[in-house]
């Protein structure tokens, strides 16, 4: 009996240490963000929240020049939301349509086009950074939402996910729909989409997080400060801190990391079950 208890105790101990390892840095970042620059400079990182929460976050979110040169925190927040939501929705639409064509139609180029979609897995942005920038620039899409979102949504993961799911839908549904004289579009809209609701929700959650966290692409294609997302703001604040100055605004840097973290973390926490489902299924 004694033996069993020891085992249970170490199990909990390992888990608690793991929890601390994963959570403490973020907690410290939050606690430190609520102290004044002077305190941080004098005492270092903080473990408990201070009295400057409202002041720091007001500065970062609403005051011009509070954190970046001109752009407000709220503007960056808005840009991040547009990217996250636009990316998620765009990806769902585009991949559902493509998966539908590939699974439900017999057409000559089907397998060839499937391979074209597959090719995207071989060409992550990192291996084609500069020519991609040139394409977007020559199309006049730099610093636009379209240029930011559209090139990101075409990768194959979403299409594979829905292809897998559509294949598991019983054939009888289509047979019945055909008997009733449904058109291809009607079958898609009235039967397949409602049937995929859970799948759509799961993939939306994952893709919102993925979109929100994009870094390299927004980095190279936004030049104007007003188009920065929060994650890009991180790079700028790194620059500002690296350049130094009389009193480094560490509390604002920490506040920015918290703001960039909070929305995707909330989404993951609130929709935890869908999130896990979406992640595990879409990566398979």
């Amino acid at each position, binding site marked *: 009996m004694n033996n069993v208890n020891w085992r249970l105790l170490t199990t909990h101990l390992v888990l608690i240490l793991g929890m601390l390892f994963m959570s403490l840095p973020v907690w410290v970042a939050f606690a430190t963000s609520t102290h004044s620059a002077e305190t941080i400079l004098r005492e270092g990182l903080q473990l408990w929240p201070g009295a400057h929460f409202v002041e720091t976050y007001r500065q970062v979110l609403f005051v011009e020049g509070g954190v970046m040169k001109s752009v407000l925190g709220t503007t960056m927040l808005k840009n991040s939301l547009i990217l996250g939501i636009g990316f998620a929705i765009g990806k769902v*639409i585009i991949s559902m349509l493509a998966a539908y064509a590939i699974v439900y139609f017999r057409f000559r180029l089907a397998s060839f086009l499937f391979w074209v979609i597959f090719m995207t897995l071989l060409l992550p942005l990192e291996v084609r950074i500069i020519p991609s920038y040139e394409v977007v620039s020559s199309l006049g899409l730099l610093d636009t939402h379209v240029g930011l979102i559209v090139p990101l949504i075409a990768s194959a993961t979403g299409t594979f996910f829905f292809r897998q799911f559509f294949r598991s839908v019983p054939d009888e549904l289509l047979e019945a729909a055909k008997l009733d004289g449904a058109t291809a579009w009607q079958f898609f809209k009235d039967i397949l989409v409602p049937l995929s609701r859970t799948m759509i929700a799961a993939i939306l959650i994952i893709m919102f997080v993925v979109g929100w966290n994009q870094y390299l692409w927004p980095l190279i294609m936004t030049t104007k400060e007003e188009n920065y997302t929060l994650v890009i703001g991180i790079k700028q604040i790194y620059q500002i801190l690296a350049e130094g100055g009389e009193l480094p605004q560490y509390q604002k840097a920490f506040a920015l990391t918290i703001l960039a*973290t909070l929305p995707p973390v909330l989404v993951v926490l609130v929709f935890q079950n869908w999130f896990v489902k979406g992640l595990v299924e879409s990566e398979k």
Partner: protein
Amino acid sequence: MKRVQFEHSSIPYLFVAPQIIIIVVFFLWPAAQAIHQSFLLEDAFGLSTQFVWFRNYKDTILSTAWLQAAGFTLIFSALVTFLSLGLALLLAVKANEVIRGARTYKTTLMWAYAIAPPVAGLMGNLMFNPIIGDLYKFLNAIGWDFDHKLDAFDASFVVVLIAVWKQVSVNFIFFLSGLQGIPHSVQEAATMDCRSPTRRFWTITFPLLAPTTFFLMVINITYAFFETFGIIDTTTRGAPGGATNTLVFKVFQDGFRGADLGGSSAQSVVLMLIVLALTVLQFRFIERKVHY
């Protein structure tokens, strides 16, 4: 595919068109450009270009800087993969054992997934800041002459730590779902046959998790190669002296800062080959899993 399908000549093309068009414009065309440019040499003013065969490859790939980055990327990927998988497996096995607090543990261990690599990078960077960073002070206090701005080993330590921290949660989620997929009957039978939990883990549970582990290895190597760009860019930026340059970070540096198109393209093409190899590995494994 399906037994029953629609027979149409044009409608399916309409449905795939959006994705295919985007792929051609933003994936295939730029990739072709990269391959094309990797064979070209441009003069300093961009006025004339000439076809130089594999000279860019020879000049960049065989340069000490590239080889150094390749070496670092390999070690970095191996460490990040091994450490984050090991840690995640340990935590997943423990989280799968407990009943009390299971949900809390699970949630707190997985939510870091949602943090972007550059955000994790900046947080870590500040923790190791010489002026305010307590980790920096702590490491120096315990007698480690720690300075990640000057010492290559210390700088690598910082990026590996942050990259592992960021990746544990994904691995944890997959391992936990893998563990929960092992049928109870199997575990009960194992418990009857073998009393040592450690031995049970290595002879029953771990082999059953092999497909998950293998799949995660590919995911983690890909992550370490590509997605850690944001971490490097907000911590060491390759310092000191290129000791923490990953291959992706170097492509970015050479292409945008250095404006060396040919050389950067040649590096891109090499990266494409690496992705190709990783993808082949992944799909061969997935086929195995289907039969298994």
